[in-house]
């Protein structure tokens, strides 16, 4: 779907900007907001380009650079830290061969860390795209990654 077609689903009012940016980003195969997308959004919502850029840059769920097809967000809250999320992160970095904020060369995964995901009863936790995974350990992580690789 074109960005313009997405924009047309919303009233051209500034208060819709977060929903607009979510929709445009979700529609991009590389999960990010391009410069063109920000400019089209500014035009459509009647905002300055700098204001739109300011909003897009502020919220951590938006990315201004290309990401992988699947975005992994590992919770690094105090609870997950107590429940050994650092081991989870190390395992992910090893298995994916990338560090935090980086994308695998094949373009399949981006590894990010996140503030509390609110899954503390089953920590440590992560999200891949919109799916939550809890009670993580090395074995479980490998299994989860394989299901995405097999798609």
């Amino acid at each position: 779907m074109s960005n313009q077609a997405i924009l047309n689903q919303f009233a051209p009012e500034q208060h819709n900007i977060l929903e607009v940016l979510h929709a445009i980003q979700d529609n991009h195969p590389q999960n990010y907001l391009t410069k063109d997308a920000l400019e089209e959004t500014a035009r459509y919502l009647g905002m300055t380009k700098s204001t739109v850029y300011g909003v897009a840059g502020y919220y951590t769920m938006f990315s201004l650079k290309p990401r992988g097809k699947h975005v992994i967000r590992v919770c690094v809250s105090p609870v997950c830290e107590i429940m050994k999320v650092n081991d989870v992160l190390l395992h992910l970095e090893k298995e994916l061969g990338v560090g935090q904020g980086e994308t695998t060369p094949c373009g399949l995964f981006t590894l990010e860390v996140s503030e509390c995901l609110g899954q503390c009863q089953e920590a440590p936790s992560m999200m891949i795209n919109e799916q939550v995974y809890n009670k993580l350990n090395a074995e479980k992580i490998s299994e989860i990654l394989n299901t995405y690789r097999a798609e």
Partner: protein
Amino acid sequence: MIQETRVILKNAGQNNPESIEDYMAAGGYEALRKALSIKPAGIIDELLEAGLRGRGGAGFSTGMKQQFTSKGCQDCPQRYVVVNADEGEPGTFKDRVIMEEDPHLYLEGTIIAAYAIQATKGYIYIRGEYTDSIYKTQKAINDAYEKGFLGESIMGSEFDFDVEIKPGAGSYLCGEELTMLESLEGKRGNPRIKPPFPAEKGLFGMPTLVNNVETLANIPVIISRGKDWYRQYGTERSPGTKIFSISGQVNKPGNYEVELGVTLRQLIDDLAGGMKDGKTFKAALLGGAAGTFVDAGMLDEKMTYDNLREKDATLGSGAVIVLAEGDSVYDILQNCLRFFRHESCGKCVPCRVGTSLLVRKGVELRNGNPGKMLMLQEMEKEAELMAQTSLCPLGQSPILPLKSAIRYFAKEL
């Protein structure tokens, strides 16, 4: 041995959250029917007398907030209700469970609150990461429209109310009520200067009531069963129940709803299955990152807003993060300080500079620096300054975990 008192979570896990019929069969939307037969001011009086206090963290009187909003700016053409569903306080996951397991409950509370202040439009601001909460709430809204509990002439009355979801996009600060209004208007999440308070000048400049999900979930039962019934739970100044999110080193982490006034020991031993694998309790972080550490000496204190405040501790959102012997208070404190650094919006200097400074000094504590006690004093002084001069609660918060960690665990920092 105490047990849970499930008033708010009575349907959770029992009913199909996607079925409005299930909710109605359990008495759902009867409180709304009753509310619409009472004058709006009568609703506010009932909440005032029930003594309900905001469950988001600050513990302010819900009835007073509604009263202020209903009387704010009489010339304004519009009034709004905003549901604060931006649950982001680390260690807090109670609102998520209400939204995922009984979304109609807080939706009904929202409609009653709107009626009480005569708002005709509402927004539910749910954090973007809570995809299931967004899905379940949207389903609840759709079904409520179909049954005539939302929209025009609700249940045949003269009251109209529309509500829609606004998803957040990853900002802890947007859970602060004034910042949330900025975000709802489509701006960066920078806090506003107050006054004016939202009750006078809130969303789009109109009087606005901002209430937390759990707070709103308390309203239907207060209306349907009355203040006296409600007050049988809890204490005189902290009536009702509270959902505690217990996590960390316990055998059964989870959400537990209890009367306000139980002790930390009861929460851990009686409800959360005791310490994980028989470990020894070391500390708890109460109220999340913007909360306070306590040690074993606080295990038998009553968990109420006022008693904890007297002991320089916090109830906050109801997060109880349990640490065992072997866990590092230093690591968790640094985690909190990094969190504030990341979430500071950068608008005001004390917070922007101070949150970075605290992390850096925290790192230096472990760099073999001989003047540790001096460094801790400096950190505390910095955090104090931030608390006095920052615009919003974010910059005012690092002092809480820092000061309490120093008070109980200075030796190991």
